[in-house]
């Protein structure tokens, strides 16, 4: 293994929580997510000579993780669903009267999104990536990321029973299963 650049290891350790959270958003399974991170670390360490010091380590690691995830997904030919995910497809979500959302309901709805929607929302909405950085990680144009984020947000709002104006829809929440086919 080629010697890692100075500070590489400490930066890697700092980025581990973000890597784990990104992996969890893709797999929505803790064990699979940690396996994914572990594989990402092995790949990163094996290819450390390809990393240019001074460039964006987070984007480099997220790209490795993302590519590995989709590579595994293609091998499986289908997305691996955990028991919670199967159950989640049958439950209804209703926003609180004050317009807030229960976090667990949110997670259930989020898990129903397509992987490309989950990843852009996580990258841009939670991990603090810029649109440019997210585009680099996902290997597409900035405009594609922006429109994907908008579509993902609309889908999620729909699943959570919020109309486009951010108001709770009257009556029952919508069945997530009805809107899960992205």
């Amino acid at each position: 293994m080629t010697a890692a650049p100075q500070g590489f290891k400490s930066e890697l350790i700092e980025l581990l929580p973000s890597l784990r959270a990104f992996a969890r958003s893709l797999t929505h399974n803790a064990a699979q997510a940690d396996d994914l991170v572990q594989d990402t670390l092995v790949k990163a360490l094996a290819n450390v000579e390809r990393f240019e010091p001074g460039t964006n380590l987070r984007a480099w690691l997220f790209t490795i993780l993302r590519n590995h995830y989709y590579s595994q997904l293609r091998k499986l030919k289908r997305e691996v669903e955990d028991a919670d995910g199967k159950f989640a497809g049958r439950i209804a979500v209703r926003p609180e009267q004050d317009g807030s959302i229960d976090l667990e309901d949110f997670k259930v709805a989020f898990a129903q999104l397509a992987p490309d929607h989950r990843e852009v929302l996580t990258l841009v909405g939670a991990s603090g990536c810029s649109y440019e950085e997210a585009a680099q990680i996902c290997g597409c144009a900035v405009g594609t990321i922006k429109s994907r984020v908008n579509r993902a947000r609309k889908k999620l709002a729909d699943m959570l029973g919020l109309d486009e104006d951010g108001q709770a829809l009257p009556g029952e929440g919508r069945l997530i299963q009805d809107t899960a086919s992205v």
Partner: protein
Amino acid sequence: MTRKDDDMDAQVNNKAERSEERKDRPSKSSAHTKALITRNLKLAYGEVASEPIPKAMLDLLNAMDDPSEKKS
């Protein structure tokens, strides 16, 4: 045209202009939905990010310092 008519025209025009401005910017409630989603995304993300790092991951990184340790 009376002064009263002028005032009414001005009011109508102002209203139309304000309406156009509103079309160009996201509505307050649309911004509310966006904020709601972002807040929950960050909460869910933060929950995972605050979990302790598994020992196996740290061991793997510590092996960087001593490649012989990785083989054993």
